[in-house]
């Protein structure tokens, strides 16, 4: 009996070790992909952020004055960093996973003894990695234009991590259902970008008319941008507890749904 229990334990631990190696391999492959195509992954966000700071920060921002107690450029900086994190964590997973489906090399993972939750976790880690790296690049650009204080570093880290996880999972969800390249650009163009722009990146929602302000609270990105901004500037349009609860709820719900879809074989198995 003891021998059986030992062998079960040994088998369990060797399987866990094999899964850990599998997970590392997916993350390493995603990192390799991101670095291999650095001209598409790391450079464009830096260029875009530079243009935002020149146009909205220096040219227009100087005429706007202060917002939330800070210079306009300081006010928009956390939102611009978060915008880059959102679009890059989403974009990394949707293009990588859909590319794997399209090129059929997703089969390399599907035939291997990896559980679906681990495959999802591997791709999401890749998305988070790119989101954070691009976030650092944009932060570097930001510091070239303005000084941004960091009031609560842990909140900065927690909010950017949760947001990157949520949007990496969003990219995975999109890639599962996408049947062609049009369908991986549809959601970012028509849903993600409008929600990001209307999510308080460039303004405080308190400046909006009542109806627009009320409507803005239905936009989950508003909570992410404001939680992140609070971490830097100590000012927010929304309650922090609500913001983190929403982000955590989205992360858990989306992970559950995505793993469920993978287990059902939606979009990946005949």
């Amino acid at each position, binding site marked *: 009996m003891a021998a059986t229990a030992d062998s079960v334990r040994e088998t369990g631990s060797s399987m866990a070790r094999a899964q850990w190696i599998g997970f590392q391999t997916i993350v390493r*492959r995603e990192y390799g992909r991101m670095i291999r195509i650095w001209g598409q992954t790391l450079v464009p966000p830096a260029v875009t952020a530079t243009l935002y700071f020149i146009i909205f920060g220096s040219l227009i921002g100087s005429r706007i004055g202060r917002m939330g107690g800070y210079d306009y450029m300081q006010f928009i900086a956390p939102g611009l960093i978060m915008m880059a994190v959102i679009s890059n964590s989403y974009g990394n997973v949707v293009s990588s996973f859909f590319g794997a489906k399209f090129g059929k090399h997703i089969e390399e993972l599907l035939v291997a003894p990896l559980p679906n939750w681990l495959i999802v976790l591997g791709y999401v880690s890749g998305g988070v990695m790119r989101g954070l790296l691009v976030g650092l690049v944009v932060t570097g650009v930001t510091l070239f234009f303005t000084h941004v204080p960091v009031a609560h570093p842990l909140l900065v880290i927690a909010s950017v991590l949760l947001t990157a996880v949520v949007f990496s999972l969003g990219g995975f969800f999109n890639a599962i259902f996408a049947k062609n390249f049009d369908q991986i650009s549809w959601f970012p163009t028509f849903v993600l970008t409008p929600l990001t722009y209307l999510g308080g990146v460039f303004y405080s929602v308190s400046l909006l008319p009542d109806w627009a302000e009320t409507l803005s609270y239905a936009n989950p990105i508003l909570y992410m941008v404001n939680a992140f901004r609070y971490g830097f500037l100590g000012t927010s349009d929304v309650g922090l507890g609500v913001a983190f609860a929403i982000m955590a709820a989205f992360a858990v719900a989306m992970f559950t749904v995505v793993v469920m879809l993978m287990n059902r074989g939606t979009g990946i198995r005949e």
Partner: protein
Amino acid sequence: MKALSIRGLTKTYRNGVQALRGIDLDVEEGDFFALLGPNGAGKTTTIGIITSLVTKSGGEVQVFGHDIDHELARAKSCIGIVPQEINFNQFEKVFTIIVNQAGFYGIPRKLARERAERYLRQLQLWDKRDHTARSLSGGMKRRLMIARALVHEPRLLILDEPTAGVDIEIRRSMWGFLRAINGQGTTIILTTHYLEEAESLCRNIAIIDGGLIIENDSMAGVIGKLNQETFVLNLREPVADPPSLPGYVSRMTDDHTLEIEVLKEQGLNEVFEMLTRNGIEVISMRNKVNRLEELFMRLVASRGAAGAGNA
């Protein structure tokens, strides 16, 4: 021990196509097994289900005793698959593809690199290790997929038309490699449209058609069921009219070539005696098609005729 055991396997696709209609199949450990059938017969669907790329509609599949419904990870660990279509990332380097695949199977990085080198050398791809996969020729891509399938040292290797589009020299070197792998104990299941390949390599065979196994026996047993062969005789002198060969069906395809159908109970000696009596000298002889191919065509054709009759 059985490397593969399939019972009552069925698959109906969402569009209503019934690809498998209840197949039973056993492959013994260490076997070199051919799974043959015409296009659309259900070979790739069967392989897809074994490797979990296709969801079955019904039935049971066990790989070395591991049921894919209850011990999928263990079953997967036993299998290496070389698919019909190229399915690696064309932008990745050859060496990286192999090492990553080992990682997906939980092989530590150092060991993965050692094995990648070993298999790439054995398959004459080592000097291409730093090339991106898309720069390889068709034959190299096929060999890369074999190396990738072997890197976790599976007990069961499944090859779905591994030599399609590969020139004869590389095909024969791949045969030698597969024989060696099989000789070391790896069970191999092969699907191919080159029936000479199946006859040369495999010890046991199943023929699938219309989602059903229509023949399942040893290669010698299957070939033994062939009750008629067609021979092509090359004649030394031109012959204007077909010679008289009572009891045989024959025809001249040109004035130097005679085709003759010989039943199992008939003999070639009698044919040669009659040709000699007619003053016809034969300088060479060959089977019109490979024996397995002839049997395969007859089996599939007879099923088609029966199907037409039923309809």
